[in-house]
């Protein structure tokens, strides 16, 4: 199966590295970042793409110049992997890339929250009409296969509620305030130094990232047409070290929790008090999600919510799912099929 990869940041590089290193039966035939691209029907050398990125700042560099959009419109691929940076206002340029690829009857795998949160209905309908797949496991909770679990593993269950810690940046800051008695500003500064928080941390600490993920989960599970405006959002930027101490005095902790309960018409992101022995109480940059299902009961998943290779795990899982489902390759793990 031929793969076109748009975006060569942390996630794109992780995906490229795994496509190069692992024998998955996937061929990287097109690759682009914001500065340029490359198409090679025989397969692109991943080490060469990395060295071009290091020398010239772009993984592409083909002449005449090839753009991301040229790749989308080409015949060079079967599946588009869209991992360009998220824009929560317009979803662009990813939204255009995904729309065009689906329109051309190509499967799409993305880690990009913008288009999935903003245009879920439109994009899933388009994929359905064209008979292709739109998969977005990597948009929520990194390596945790929560979308696959909700869409496939829990089929037949009625899901009553979802709760979770879905932002590693916030969880890191709160954990450090708790462990070291740091102020919010000190913990944020440390998170920025460690590369866990952006220079402008607004999107994470104000709860917007968690809200987007909650919207994606709610739309996936309940077929809602929810958007950011439907979520009540409170961030962690006003939490004081004293508040954390007060919580600790009662054997509890404060965490940023996203919560969806359709029976109460509730989509909410807010800092909450949880007992120290609660399954959602995870440390550092970890993510944790609890699903309440009628047959399965309560299930809690804990894992790495970000990271280059961890997020690549979600993208690769989607790619291989598409290959099994659409390319007539028997189901199951590739390593389990080998004699």
């Amino acid at each position, binding site marked *: 199966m031929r793969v076109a990869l748009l975006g060569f940041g942390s996630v794109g590089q992780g995906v490229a590295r795994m496509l190069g290193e692992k024998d998955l039966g996937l061929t990287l035939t097109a690759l682009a970042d914001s500065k340029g691209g490359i198409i090679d029907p025989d397969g692109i050398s991943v080490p060469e793409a990395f060295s071009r990125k290091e020398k010239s700042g772009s993984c592409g560099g083909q002449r005449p110049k090839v753009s991301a959009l040229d790749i989308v419109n080409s015949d060079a691929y079967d599946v588009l992997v869209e991992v360009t940076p998220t824009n929560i206002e317009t979803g662009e340029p990813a939204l255009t890339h995904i729309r065009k690829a689906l329109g051309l009857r190509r499967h799409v795998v993305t880690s990009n929250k913008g288009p999935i949160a903003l245009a879920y209905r439109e994009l899933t309908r388009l994929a359905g009409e064209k008979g292709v797949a739109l998969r977005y496991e990597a948009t929520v909770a990194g390596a945790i296969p929560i979308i696959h679990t909700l869409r496939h593993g829990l089929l037949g269950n009625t899901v*009553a509620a979802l709760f979770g810690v879905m932002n590693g940046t916030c969880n890191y800051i709160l954990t450090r305030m708790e462990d070291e008695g740091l102020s919010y500003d000190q913990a944020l500064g440390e998170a920025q130094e460690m590369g866990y928080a952006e220079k402008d941390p607004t999107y994470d600490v104000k709860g917007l990232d968690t809200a987007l993920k909650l919207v994606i989960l709610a739309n996936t599970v309940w077929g809602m047409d929810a958007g950011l405006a439907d979520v009540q959002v409170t961030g962690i930027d*006003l939490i*004081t070290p*004293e*508040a954390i*101490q*007060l919580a600790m005095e009662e054997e509890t902790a404060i965490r940023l929790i996203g919560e969806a309960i359709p029976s109460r018409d509730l989509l909410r992101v*807010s800092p909450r*008090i*949880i007992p120290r022995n609660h399954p959602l109480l995870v440390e550092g940059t970890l993510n944790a999600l609890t699903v309440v299902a009628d047959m399965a009961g309560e299930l809690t998943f804990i894992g790495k919510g970000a990271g280059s290779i961890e997020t690549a795990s979600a993208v690769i899982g989607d790619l291989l799912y598409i290959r099994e489902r659409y390319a007539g390759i028997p189901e199951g793990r590739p390593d389990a099929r080998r004699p």
Partner: protein
Amino acid sequence: MKLEMKDTPGQLVRVLEPISVCGGNIIAVIHQRDPESESEKLDVQIVLDLPAGRLPALIDQIKALGVDILRIGKERLLHKRSLIMIGHIMHTDISDTVDQIDRTGFAEVSELSLKMPAISERSSARVTIKTANRTDMESAVAILREVAGRKELLVVEPLEEWA
């Protein structure tokens, strides 16, 4: 409450029935029979959780069964929830904030723990509210949320167990 009833088969079950009719929840039944005792009467102690205002009806129904109520313990508010408020808690009249809960008649602030790092900085407080049942608790928390919103205080609520 402590009851005195006839030591005959089925009597205890008959006494427990009105409790569920009144919407109560039995927490413990303590029933010790002294093997030496020749008495035909039996003392039973029952600890229960009852919606506010239902106690007089329950007493009437138990008495109607011919059972004596020896003693009724203190009514206690059983539901407890701690919330944390952050902001200019003192300058926005903390006693008014507490009073808004206390004056409901169904909820009370039973504990308040305040930390003030410096005069101009935001302070943090842990407020413990007690009510007789969950519905009253939800109403009390809604009031606190509304008051805090007006006073521009952030309220950090516990994540309730899914039940």
